[in-house]
């Protein structure tokens, strides 16, 4: 065949578009957390202007009461989501833990063994999730929808329709329910908030400054590469589910103390709130990306917004809309630029072949 083919025609080369790099730098600069701080300031201003009671110190206390146990569950769920899994069973475990306390209390146990039993239930339940996900390789979303139903069902089996303490039951010890219902003396912080703050510091250090935390990030970003680097992917996932179960049980105990009573349905549906808080905090649903600081900010934003809206008598339904929109924003905004670029690209690509075909 003709040898002149050996001389390639060289076209003037257009440099590759620099968009990719620039975008990444931009994103590094404008971290999600920065955005969250701005949103938080906005929420605080909104609350102070709109609600006369928002600036009362008691707002902090009620914020702790309303958000404390949710926030505690958000921490282990953050870890689970960091590794690319999800735990939807936390709120049911919270309910089951409370039901365990109530059931044993009803049957005459003293309070500490009741708590211990509840934590053991949390451990066993978490281990069940961990076993099914990490050992048998089942999808965590399906598994934890299953245990969500199972745990809530077991809570129902334990308590039926009764509320504990009911007629003829002993009341829970006064000093314990005080811990649930009162603030730390001399402050407006609820005890659950204190627990959350301590746990958040621990979780933050683990995630951002230990081999375990780095391993979780690697697992979330690229599970296979993590495994090839000698990280025990399945073992870590297993224990994260266990921690999630135990802390949810702990949150269940706190909620029981706070309400000074328990029924099987406590906390129904809260799993979605927890997931919403975690994702709004900037944790990627695909794993590997996110910070505890972001989740803490998210807790404060969602909690204080809820306080402000409740104080100015915005209905629970409208608050639902706000939660949903926040969640949608948290995933749409980071993708918005990419989406626009893709749409433009597609229009360009669609146009050219059409023009050429008709020619």
């Amino acid at each position, binding site marked *: *065949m003709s040898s002149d083919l050996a001389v390639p*025609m060289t*076209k003037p080369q257009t440099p590759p578009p620099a968009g990719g790099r620039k975008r990444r730098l931009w994103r590094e600069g404008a971290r999600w957390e920065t955005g969250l701080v701005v949103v938080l300031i906005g929420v605080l201003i909104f609350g102070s202007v709109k609600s006369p009671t928002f600036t009362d110190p008691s707002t902090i206390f009620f914020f702790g009461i309303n958000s404390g146990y949710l926030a505690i569950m958000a921490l282990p769920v953050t870890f689970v989501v960091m590794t690319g899994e999800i735990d939807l069973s936390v709120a049911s475990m919270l309910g089951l833990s409370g039901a365990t306390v109530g059931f044993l209390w009803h049957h005459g146990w003293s309070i500490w063994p009741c708590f211990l039993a509840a934590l053991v239930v949390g451990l066993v339940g978490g281990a069940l999730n961990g076993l099914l996900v990490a050992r048998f390789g089942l999808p965590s979303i399906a598994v934890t929808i299953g245990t969500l139903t199972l745990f809530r069902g077991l809570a129902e089996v334990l308590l039926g329709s009764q509320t504990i303490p009911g007629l003829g039951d002993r009341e829970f010890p006064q000093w314990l329910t005080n811990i649930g219902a009162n603030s730390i003396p001399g402050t407006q912080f609820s005890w659950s908030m204190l627990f959350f703050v301590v746990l958040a510091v621990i979780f933050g250090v683990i995630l951002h*400054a230990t081999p375990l935390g*780095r391993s979780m*990030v690697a697992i979330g*970003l690229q599970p296979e590469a993590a495994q090839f680097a000698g990280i*025990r992917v399945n073992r870590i996932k297993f224990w994260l589910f266990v921690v999630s179960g135990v802390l949810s049980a702990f949150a269940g105990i706190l909620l029981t103390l706070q309400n000074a009573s328990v029924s099987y349905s406590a906390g129904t549906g809260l799993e979605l709130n927890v997931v919403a808080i975690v994702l709004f905090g900037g944790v990627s649903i695909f794993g590997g*990306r996110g910070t505890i600081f972001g989740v803490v900010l998210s807790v404060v934003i969602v909690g204080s917004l809820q306080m402000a809206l409740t104080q100015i008598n915005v209905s629970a339904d409208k608050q639902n809309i706000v939660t949903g929109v926040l969640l949608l924003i948290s995933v749409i905004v980071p993708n918005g630029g990419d989406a626009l670029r893709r749409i433009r690209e597609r229009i360009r690509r669609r146009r050219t072949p059409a023009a050429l075909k008709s020619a």
Partner: protein
Amino acid sequence: MTEVPARLVLEGATKSFGPVVALGDGSITLYPGEAHALLGENGAGKSTLVKILGGVYDPDAGTLTIDGERAVFGGPADAQAAGVSIIYQEPSLFPDLTVAENIFMGRQPRSTGRRIDRRAMEREARATFTRLGVHLDPSRPARGLSVADQQIVEIAKALSFNARVFVMDEPTAALTTVEVLRLFEVIKTLRAQGAAVLFISHRLEEVFACCQRVTIMRDGRFVRSAPVEELTIDDIIRSMVGRDLEALFPKTETTPGDVVLEVQDLNSEGVFHDISFTVRAGEIVALAGLVGAGRSEVARAVFGIDRRTSGTVRIGGHALRNGDARAAMAAGMALVPEDRRQQGLVMDLGIDQNVALASLSQLTRMGLIFRGSERRLADTWAGKLQLKFGRLRNAVSTLSGGNQQKVVLGKWLARGPRLLIIDEPTRGIDVGTKAEVHRILDGLVADGMAVLMISSELPEVLGMADRVLVLREGRLTAELSRAEADETSIMRAATGQNVEIAA
């Protein structure tokens, strides 16, 4: 010959991914009725060119003409509509769907009311298989097919298009000689029907047996095109490599020391059987074989990523626990895996964090990791391996393939291993860095490290290895010394047949 109009002309195509230029000048001309070989080393840009022809990539520049008409593909569907049919290097099947449906996805034969005619679909699939001389059941799901059979389904898929241009990206990598011969018969038929075939293979004897013209690429650029009879193997290799082979494969003579790795009767049910071998300090042992023969699987089982069914693995006489990669690492083993992007690196983490990933527990103070210590470690190894990078905290995805491979090497060398298993050490790497990687390996071995190297590139195996083990369908079929090993002896052991294709 110029009076025959070209079927397909690609001129000056370029494609970059961020800072990485995958294709600097992709040019090729295909004529009707010819089988045209596209040659080049791994990383020369062949697969990028193929993906541009298939409409998967939109080139940054360049023109594509088919039968004299300018063509711009908005996606794979456009390429198919234009009569370009592609067999990709990596089989991409739908495991949940039947073999027949895999072949006809999106083009299923239909009966009245636009309903899919399953019977016709399976009949046509069966006819295609008969033409290829293989028997696969069209109604079985694709899940569980061996690599070779997946490749056959891919070939059948490409044939079922009434295409004018067939592009075959390493279709023979997993096939036995008999199957390759059948494929050549099919290519001959396609040529007789006036189609143009672009054929990519690493086995030069196949190129001489089935192709009329050759185009050679190097470092993402067109080098030359010529009729096959005007070229010798030496010409081709020189054009592909662009330098002398000796420079590419430095080899320091060493005397092997003590046995470092001892593998005995290693079995993994349905994957490989009765594998026994040793690797000594100061030698490179190559594990050769066809794609799908089980080479990477052996490496994974030795390192403990996968559990073995039976057998023992010893490092320096110390037996390793089954399926425990950490124990293997503690005993001084390191594995540079085959798939750099999925297995070797966490692409979105920085260079420093990737280098540190296998040494985390050594880097802690009071249980905590500090960024400074990670950076110091990475800095040391970036220097030793002459890594080219912007900043250590930049994501490794911004590096070129060769530099990414250096990061993986750095990650493992930082642990100071006694045995390095390296799977496809230079896949997807430019020629310059390739020689560097070889020099690094040679240096390591000279310093007494034991190296087990898996490679699909025969020149690499022949150039670097002190001993060659050959796997075929999960069994060791030969152990060849450096003197015994040549292209013929390895291919014979790998395929179980004579390789006199070029006859």
